[in-house]
C-alpha cells in the first residue's frame, strides 16, 4: 500500500504517529514525516485509522485494487 502525507495540510495533531508509529513520525517542526511510504498489508488497519483521524486530511492511502501501484 502506498502512503503519502501532505506537509502543507498537516496541523501537527499527532494522531498519525500514535496510530501507526512505524509509518509516521514528526519532524522538529512538529509536522508529519513519512517513515515508510510502502508499508506491508499488516499495517493497513493502523494506516487507515491515521487517515481517518487526521483532522486536516493530510494523509492519503493508495489502496491496491483502486489504483495500480507501478512496479519499481
Amino acid at each position, binding site marked *: 500500500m502506498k502512503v503519502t502525507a501532505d506537509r502543507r495540510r498537516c496541523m*501537527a495533531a499527532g494522531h498519525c504517529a500514535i496510530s501507526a508509529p512505524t509509518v509516521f513520525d514528526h519532524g522538529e517542526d512538529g509536522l508529519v514525516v513519512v517513515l515508510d511510504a510502502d508499508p506491508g498489508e499488516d499495517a493497513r488497519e493502523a494506516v487507515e*485509522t491515521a487517515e481517518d483521524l487526521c483532522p*486536516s486530511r493530510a494523509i492519503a492511502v493508495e489502496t491496491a485494487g483502486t489504483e495500480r501501484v507501478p512496479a519499481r
Partner: protein
Amino acid sequence: MTTPIPTEDKRLFAYPQDRSCPWQPSSGYRELGERGPLHRVRLWDGKSIWMVTGHAQARRLLADPRMSADRSRDDFPAVLPRLDAPIFKPIAIIGFDPPVHDIHRRMLAPDFSLKQVRALRGSVEELTGKLVDDMLRKGPPAELIEDYALPIPSMVISELLGVPYDDHAFFEAKTVGLLQAKSAQDAEAAGRALWDYLDELITAKEREPGGEGVLSRLVGRVDEDGDLTREDLLRIALALLLGGHDTTSQMIALGVVTLLEHPHQLAALRADPGVLPAAVDELLRMVSVTDVSGVRVATEDIEIDGYVIRAGEGVLVSSSMTNRDPEVFPDPYRFDVHRAGGRNAASGRHHLTFGFGIHQCLGQNLARMELEVAFAVLFDRIPDLRLAVPLDGLPTRSGGTMQGVHTLPVEW
C-alpha cells in the same frame, strides 16, 4: 408578552440547556439528537443558528473550507452573551481562517508536538506527586480543584509559556471571569485585565531577550510587517493561557467524578494500566467538557445530507451530542473504558471533544498527557478517594459553556 422574537422562532429549541448530570447532556439535547443530525436552534439574542448533533455531518462541516471561524465577521454568531465582548473578536488562531491561522498554528506546532509532550511527562509526574504529598500531609477533606485539578495544568502552561506561576491566582480568576461571564461587559473587563498583564510581561521579555518558554521565543520573531506583529503575539499569549488551563482542570475534575461514580470502570482501569490512554479518550468523549466542538459561519450555500445551510448562517457543533451519535459509538450513553476494545490504540480518538478540521485543538496531546498522569497518580496514591458531598450537591456550571464544578470536596 411583546418580545422581538418572531412566532416561528418561539417554537425553536432554546440553546443552551444545563446538564442535569456532570457527564451527561440534558434530556432536551438527547431528544434533539434523536430527531436527526442538524437542527435550527434559538439563541439568547433571538437569532437562530444550526446545531449539529450528527458525527459524520460535524466532521464534514468542520473540515469544509467554506465554513469560516473568523469571529470578526458581522455574521459570526455570538452563541452566548459574553462572546459579544470585543476581546473575543479576533481571538488568536481559533478565530482566524487561513492563511493567518495556518501561519500562527505552525509557529506553535513544535512546542505542542508529541515529542515535546513526551519530554515533559517526567516533570508533570513529579509536580503531580508533590500535590498529592501536600494533600496527604494536610489530611482529608480536600478541595480537589484548588489542591490538584487546577494547579497541574496551570503550572504546566505557565512553565511552557514562560508566565510566572506566582501570578496564578490572578490569571486563573480572570480566566474564569472571562469564560464564565454572564455579560459581554464582565467578559471584556476580565479579558482586558489579562491583556494588560500579558502586555507587561511581554514588555519585560522584550527588555531581556533569550528567556525560557514559548513567549520569549516568539518575542524574537515579532516583525510588524511580517507574519507576527506584537499584537498577534499578545493575542496568541492570551489564547494559550486561556486555552491551556481551565479546560484541562475541569476535565480532570469531571473525569475524577465520572470514575468515582463508575467503580467497576475505575477498578478495570486500576487492574490494567495499559487501558489508561483509551480510558482518557473515553472520559473525554463522555464528559465533552467544552460542550461545543466549534462555531462557524457558512461563507457559501452548503448542501449537506438534504439540508441547505445558507451563506451567512451560523453553525454550532455540539461535542456532547456528536460524541453520542450511535452510528459511531454503540450504546453511547454508557461509560466504558474498554470501548476501543482490541482495535488500534488510537481508535478511541474518534470523539469530537477536541474539534475537527484545521482548528482541532493544538493542546490536545499535552492535555491527554496531563490527564493520564493526573488520574494515574491520584488513584494510585489515594486508592480510597471518594466524594465528600452527594453527587447532586456538587455546584455545577451552566450549559453551553465550559462545563465543570466550582468546587470538588473529596475525602479518603
